[in-house]
């Protein structure tokens, strides 16, 4: 929380807001306490106030983890600011703890001097015991470094809804469940946020039970009034609007943006969209989003398993749909054989992998980047497939369109890598101009006529892209058979000839390599143009790397940054860019998978930094890493 004005301690105007550049707030409570929803609403309020923002939702894998335990704590962090930010913030300024478990689990992250709002009603002996507390943290002096606000969130909520309970409009339990709105009202007041949008949203959400809607609104207001009337809070704050590039904005999550990107691509290609999927965390929301968008000629198929999901998509691709399947690491492992089939069929297909912690079931709700090698090389036989990565929630929209562009132009399956962090976190998104989106209808044309004197050659290639014709059933004269067996050139007939297999294998590699050669130049971020240290990242590490590099430059360090969107083929400019720098650093949320690929392909000794704790990098962490690994090369003078 960085202030632009020094807070005045004069009591004349106790609640004139203190202006801040940015603030980080974390809501933490039991899985059933509605923390994700509370965080989401506060995010919308921040977005509407024009802040730049980044969120980090974090919740347990169990749907109903044991109540009151630390394992069952769900949290939502929001970083909002009056300037361009790239991470969800390293340490919160304000922590809202709905119970002892939430307090114990998250107090360690709070900034010294930070504010902690605790629901004091939940601090009885039983709750403390469940949370694993030896002593009551509210009494044992362990919170001396923080500003502690003890608020009876539960009792205030119940008191607010006394009449409703007495009239039998709602049960005591239902009433109690509104307590997250009390917390939201209080925090909204603390940060001078208008609550109209939330009230409107509540009335919409509970349209079927207006009593519940009004109860929630009442409790929300009660939270604000509590802040206003009690003398407990010395200050309120204000984070002014950020100077974002002009445009129309909304907040968007990665999964939502990715789904919208797929729909936009299909619309811009003039094709129906077919999505085959099997429920899996954290990718299911893509299926949920697409299922709501059938009016865009979207067919969603919830398949019997991961293999059927991709198999159905391959069938739809043969039939002329823009076909996608979305899953996470374990599901991608099951789809592997079918991805190879799509590769030899040379049909357009987008395979989305929202990565999570592995191996096996691993950490379903935690983020990781450990499927990179699975995406790039994880198939039987030589089966090169292009790989595109998502950098941020909003970027998922563009990355999805790019994946579709490659799939349609080159008739190939494309892996689109997102991750749990990007999927669930949100950021302000400048809504693109629809007419400015890539026109994908020019990327392909269905074959309509025979391409040889008296026959159709399904593997006769375009000399530029090496793509083969996309001839869909229903077209007279173009009847042909696709198969997983090795093909003879042009005819696609079965061929067991060794020399031909070698030639076809080389050709399939060349096909994918050409995609790289036809990309626009690589984007290198090096404002002074003379950095000797290069940080190469991919995917969702973009935010923390950009924030770290920004800090370092502020300290007079020279450092360049490249964030790769195309992981296969790797952008052909990259090797030359790497050679221009003395030190190349590659931070990843895996055990060095991109570093391995870069070393293998360039023989440059990339310095890897790896962490897989299920949480994204902190920018402060990367500042230290780059300082340490960059060493002298970061100095201003050579």
């Amino acid at each position, binding site marked *: 929380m960085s202030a632009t004005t020094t807070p005045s301690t004069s009591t004349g105007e106790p609640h004139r807001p203190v202006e801040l550049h940015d603030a980080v707030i974390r809501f933490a409570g039991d899985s059933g306490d509605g923390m994700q929803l509370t965080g989401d609403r506060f995010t919308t309020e921040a977005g509407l106030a024009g802040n730049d923002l980044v969120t980090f939702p974090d919740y347990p894998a169990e749907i109903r983890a044991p109540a009151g335990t630390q394992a069952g704590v769900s949290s939502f962090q929001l970083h909002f600011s009056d300037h361009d930010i790239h991470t969800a913030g390293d340490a919160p300024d304000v922590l809202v703890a709905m119970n002892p478990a939430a307090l114990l689990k998250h107090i360690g992250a709070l900034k010294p001097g930070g504010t902690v709002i605790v629901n004091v009603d939940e601090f009885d002996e039983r709750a403390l015991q469940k949370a694993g507390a030896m002593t009551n943290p509210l009494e044992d002096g362990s919170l001396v470094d923080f500003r502690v606000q003890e608020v009876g969130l539960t009792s205030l909520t119940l008191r607010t809804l006394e009449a409703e309970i007495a009239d039998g409009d709602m049960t005591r339990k239902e009433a109690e469940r509104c307590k997250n709105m009390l917390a939201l009202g209080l925090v909204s007041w603390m940060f001078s946020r208008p609550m109209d949008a939330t009230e409107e949203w509540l009335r919409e959400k509970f349209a079927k039970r207006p009593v519940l809607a009004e109860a929630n609104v009442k409790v929300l207001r009660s939270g604000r009034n509590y802040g206003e009337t009690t003398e407990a809070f010395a200050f309120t704050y204000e984070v002014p609007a950020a100077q974002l590039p*002009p445009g129309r904005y*909304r907040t968007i999550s990665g999964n939502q943006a990715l789904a*919208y990107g797929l729909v936009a691509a299909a619309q811009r290609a003039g094709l129906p969209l077919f999505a085959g999927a099997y429920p899996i965390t954290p990718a299911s929301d893509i299926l949920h989003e697409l299922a709501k968008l059938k009016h865009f000629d979207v067919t969603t198929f919830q398949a019997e398993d991961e293999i059927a999901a991709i198999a159905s998509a391959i069938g739809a691709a043969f*039939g002329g749909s823009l076909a996608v399947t979305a899953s996470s690491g374990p599901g991608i492992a099951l789809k592997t054989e079918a991805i190879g089939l799509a590769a030899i069929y040379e049909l357009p297909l987008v395979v989305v992998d929202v990565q999570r912690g592995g191996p096996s079931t691993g950490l379903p709700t935690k983020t990781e980047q450990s499927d990179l090698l699975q995406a790039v090389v994880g198939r039987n036989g030589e089966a090169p497939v292009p790989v595109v990565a998502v950098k941020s929630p909003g970027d998922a929209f563009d990355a999805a369109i790019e994946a579709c562009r490659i799939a349609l132009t080159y008739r190939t399956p494309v892996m689109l890598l997102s991750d749990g962090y990007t999927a669930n976190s949100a950021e302000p998104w400048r809504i693109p101009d629809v007419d400015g989106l890539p026109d994908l209808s020019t990327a392909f044309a269905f074959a309509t006529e025979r391409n040889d004197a008296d026959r159709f050659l399904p593997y006769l290639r375009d000399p530029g892209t090496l793509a083969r014709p996309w001839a869909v059933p*229903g077209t007279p004269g173009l009847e*042909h*058979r696709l198969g997983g067996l090795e093909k003879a050139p042009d005819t696609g007939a079965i061929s067991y000839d060794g020399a031909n297999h070698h030639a076809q294998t080389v050709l399939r590699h060349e096909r994918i390599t050409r995609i790289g050669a036809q990309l626009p130049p690589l984007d290198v971020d090096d404002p002074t143009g003379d950095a000797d240290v290069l940080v190469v990242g991919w995917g969702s590490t973009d935010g923390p790397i950009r924030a770290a590099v920004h800090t370092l430059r502020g300290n007079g360090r020279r450092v360049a940054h490249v964030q790769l969107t195309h992981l296969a083929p790797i952008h052909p400019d990259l090797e030359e860019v790497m050679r221009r720098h003395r030190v190349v650093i590659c931070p990843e949320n895996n055990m060095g998978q991109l570093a391995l690929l870069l070393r293998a392909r360039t023989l440059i000794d990339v310095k890897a930094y790896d962490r897989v704790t299920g949480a994204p990098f902190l920018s402060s962490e990367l500042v230290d890493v780059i300082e340490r690994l960059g060493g002298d090369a970061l100095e201003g003078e050579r």
Partner: protein
Amino acid sequence: MSTTELPQLTRKDFSSDQEVRWCPGCGDYAVLATVQSTLADIGARPESTVFVSGIGCSSRFPYYMNTYGMHTIHGRAPAVATGLSVSRPDLDVWVVTGDGDALSIGGNHLLHALRRNVNLTILLFNNEIYGLTKGQYSPTSPLGSVHKSTPMGSIDRPLNPVSLALGAEATFVARSIDSDRKHLSEVLAAAHAHRGASFVEIYQNCVVFNDDAFAAVTGKDTKQQNQIRLRQGEPVVFGPEGERAVVAGEDGSMRIVPTAEAGDRVVVHDATREDPTTAFALARLAPSPTGPTPIGIFRAVEGPVYDDLAREQVARAKAAAPADLRALLEGGNIWNVG
């Protein structure tokens, strides 16, 4: 749709230029010929017909058809075909699979294609053996089968494909025989005409690894004794003189008795009965085809078709809201900067 008469096609119009490479004498040849001529007879068009197969000897089938075709991966043909069929209502989608492909590695997909009632015609070539991998017992091989991987005899109880399909409440379930061209052709035409998932088990002789597995129902001297022809609306009697009859026992199971003793208890076949219980009881008459075995259409009922329902939802959504991309992107809370 063009209103001009399309020329009558022949079997040759459905034959591709690929050399057929099954073992000489394999039952697949006969099925291929019958499928090709049946397609011509029923007025199918090569450009709107797609054959989708998995892996195995029979799954080479699409290569020999001058239609659109997909030779996919082991077991997954019903899933690939589902995606194609749902997205392309104008196509005739056929699935060609075998006992290993459909019932072992692909059991899950077969089950779900049938219970969803996807508009597919599924032909299961049952030869009770893995042919392509050179002779291991399959999920339909009888208990005790001695093959390469079971030198002391197989210890898995076999599946009866017709029972399985009926258990999944498939709306069209039939059985036929590779070498019985007339019967197979009739069954195929009926399967093709049925809307929804049609399942046809075809007894197919593998001359190399499992010759004469179906001799009881195909042998010159035995077939009349053992083929129980199911004919719609007719009493289920069989034998050279119709001397044996199928009757229902008190517990609902079926038994074979001399026709003379059966009186009016003879089961009259009705494939259109909504309840699959009788069809299932008929299927259980012959858990394996080594004695009297029902042949023909077990079940043919109308049911909601998955493809139609899926497309109806898309159509309803389209009617209710325009495909306005700008409106989609601007949904939610919006604010302006600059």
